[in-house]
């Protein structure tokens, strides 16, 4: 009935149009068309809303008799969407970023003293440099699964799959299963995409223990099962099993599981103004022939490798403050993580026989190392934030059998000579809107094995296009 009225109405308006059109110029004609279009849309929306009310009224009646009728009441959306194949396009978003870098020391010689290099360390280039452009595509697959793909386009023109996973939608009882390639939920910062970090680069502890490099996160191909407790206090427990092919693991030709992770987080609010989350995580990997380059005591370039077990513990916390829980004017966050890694196994010195002994020599190896960072970021005015970060690593104890039995000297492993890398970082950022940010960062870095200080300056831009993504706490 209502549809009929609407159709008659729009027909009447359409019939009246030619008279008006003759007298009108093109612009007016366009304006009238616009108006009719709007009118029609208005009617369509109103009709849909009325239909919805009708359906709900029907549902109410049906309830009195049987409660089984469910689908109808929820099947309606009032939004006017184009009825084309494209209507089901997933949410697409793009991150554009880049930096201008100024380093007082050559970034190509950067190494974290006292730690087996993860291979990902680095500062990027001096001068202007494009950051990683990120393309994210996500949508619900069906009522049971959600899919998410994040592709990273590197400035060197290579493409990598950062994340590609499915996730169950409401397995119920608090369970969620995730599979594919995804950022591990260990720690706090690891699950957060680099463009949402508060500093340009990763904490030193992440670089040393997770091989995060200046950019990127620890990810693995595998499965994750997570459970949220049915309590008012947020309690999250989860387990992951994966291939273990990324540092601290290594590529291995083997069936079964190459890495396993466990994590537990608790969180909640303290009054209206504070919210926190804290947790403990554990990551086990078993690298086989995980290689790193070094120089022996005679200055020969050698390739060493480690095989064994790598166990990493992470304790993390974050505390956020916003007056009355309204962060728009001022807010503050304090965040810290402690990482502790124990590795035991075999170290193979000079795999290629190019060093002082002229042949590979294998021996027992064990290390017990730790590191932490603490950072605070304060939004002192809308759009403006200021942040400080301190990083520190303890090279701890490293036992190399070949050194202990006198076959080699500590100078044959200059990278592993005990050191306490440190870094202090300060940043300012300005966000013209929710979708753009410009950041200036200074760092005084003392992490190189020779103890020299590197003064680093970054000027970074971050832009986000497309779908409005939700950010993790």
């Amino acid at each position, binding site marked *: 009935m209502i549809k009929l009225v609407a159709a008659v109405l729009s027909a009447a308006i359409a019939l009246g149009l030619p008279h008006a059109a003759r007298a009108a110029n093109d612009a007016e004609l366009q304006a009238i068309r*616009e108006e009719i279009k709007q009118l029609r*849309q*208005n009617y369509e*929306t*109103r009709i849909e*809303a009325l239909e*919805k*009310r009708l359906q*709900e*009224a029907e*549902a*109410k009646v049906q*309830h009195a008799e049987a409660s089984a*009728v*469910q689908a109808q*009441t*929820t099947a309606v*959306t*009032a*939004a*006017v969407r184009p009825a084309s194949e494209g209507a089901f396009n997933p949410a697409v978003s793009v991150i554009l970023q880049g930096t201008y870098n100024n380093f007082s020391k050559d970034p190509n010689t950067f190494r974290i003293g006292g730690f087996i290099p993860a291979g990902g360390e680095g500062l990027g280039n001096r001068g202007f440099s494009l950051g990683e452009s990120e393309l994210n595509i996500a949508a619900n697959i069906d009522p049971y699964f*959600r899919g998410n793909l994040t592709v990273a386009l590197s400035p060197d023109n290579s493409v990598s799959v950062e994340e590609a996973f499915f996730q169950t*939608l*409401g*397995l*119920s*009882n*608090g*369970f*969620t299963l995730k599979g594919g390639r995804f950022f591990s939920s260990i720690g706090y910062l690891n699950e957060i995409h680099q463009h949402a970090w508060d500093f340009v680069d990763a904490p030193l502890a992440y670089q040393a223990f997770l091989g995060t490099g200046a950019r990127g996160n620890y990810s693995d191909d595998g499965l994750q099962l*997570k459970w*949220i*407790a*049915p*309590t*008012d206090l*947020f*309690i*999250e427990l989860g387990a992951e099993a994966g291939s273990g092919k990324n540092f601290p693991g290594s590529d291995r030709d083997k069936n079964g599981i190459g890495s396993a992770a466990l994590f537990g987080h608790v*969180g*909640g*609010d303290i009054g*209206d103004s504070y*919210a*926190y*989350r804290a947790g403990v995580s554990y990551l086990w990997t078993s690298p086989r022939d995980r290689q790193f380059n070094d120089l022996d005591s005679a200055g020969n370039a050698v390739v060493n490798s480690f095989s064994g077990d790598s166990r990493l513990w992470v304790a993390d916390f974050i505390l*956020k403050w916003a007056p*009355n*829980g*309204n*962060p*728009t*004017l001022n807010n503050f966050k304090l965040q810290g993580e402690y990482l502790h890694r124990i590795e035991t196994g075999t170290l193979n010195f000079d795999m290629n026989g190019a060093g002082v002994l002229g042949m590979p020599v294998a021996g027992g190896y064990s290390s017990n190392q730790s590191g932490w960072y603490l950072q605070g970021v304060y939004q002192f005015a*809308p759009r403006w934030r200021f942040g400080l970060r301190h990083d520190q690593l303890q090279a701890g104890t490293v036992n190399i059998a070949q050194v202990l039995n006198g076959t080699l000297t500590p100078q044959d492993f200059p990278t592993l000579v005990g050191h306490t890398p440190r870094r202090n970082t300060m940043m300012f950022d300005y966000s013209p*809107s*929710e979708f753009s940010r410009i950041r200036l960062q200074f760092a005084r870095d003392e992490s190189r094995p020779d103890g020299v200080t590197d003064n680093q300056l970054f000027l970074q831009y971050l832009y986000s296009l497309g779908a409005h993504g*939700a*950010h*993790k*706490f």
Partner: protein
Amino acid sequence: MNRILTLSALTLLFAISEAASAALNVFACEPEWAALTQELGGDKVSVYTATTALQDAHHIEARPSLIAKARSADFVICTGAELEVGWLPLLLSQSGNGKIQPGSPGFLDASNLVLKLEVPKVLDRAQGDIHPAGNPHIQLDPRNIAKVAEAVTARLSQLDTANVATYLARGKAFQERWQAAIQRWEQEGAPLKGVPVITHHKDMTYLIHWLGMREVGNLEPKPGLPATAGHLAELFSNMQRDPAKVILRTPFQDARPSELLASRAKIPAIILPYTVGGTDKAKDLFGLFDDTLQRLLQAAK
């Protein structure tokens, strides 16, 4: 003996089912929907509000406490139209709760039930943080509340069949009281017709539309962007031609821009409760509109 056993088993079963249906856990994204569900559900529902009247629902984080509450919810009611786009999708996907996923009876998008204003013709972020589905701040038109109330009654009845009679009775009683109140408010608000106002954000549009007031400007240069000195000066010069009578803002918005413009233009800048709990008098939905009208009438005198 057997009879006693059967009887006690039945009692136990009854007690368990009673406990299970003791109260429907409701998770409301905003205080107005919490208040509405409470009105309609009475003691059959236990309502949690994700945000307070002092918080801007655009800018909430997916805090652990919210995930924990979403985990145990039987019914989620939110404004929708992308108002909660920055946090609600995360709560839903992290909750591991199948009952509250969009498309299921346990999820209600209130803005889908009403005719939305200001549906943008062109979708371009150069226009600021606009909402493709239209202006989401629908709660300040009481006729919208009535429409949402119908849907809430239907959903509560669907989710908690044991208490259908209660929900229908409460729904009917509420609608009667509400319609009477709307009539009263419309009479009281008649002098506000045509009153030109400036608002901080485009979040009073439905109120202005309902009362027939006129929105002549916003303190935000574009939706979602903070007020700038340049924009305030522009507003002030516009006011020489098209004067505004009062500047409106919510309890959670920055007071400085509206106070600044008000003192320069010598017109009042007032806080409206905006939602339940926004002022002392806005204790429930009726109080929300009573106080809103009272404050408007006072300022427009």
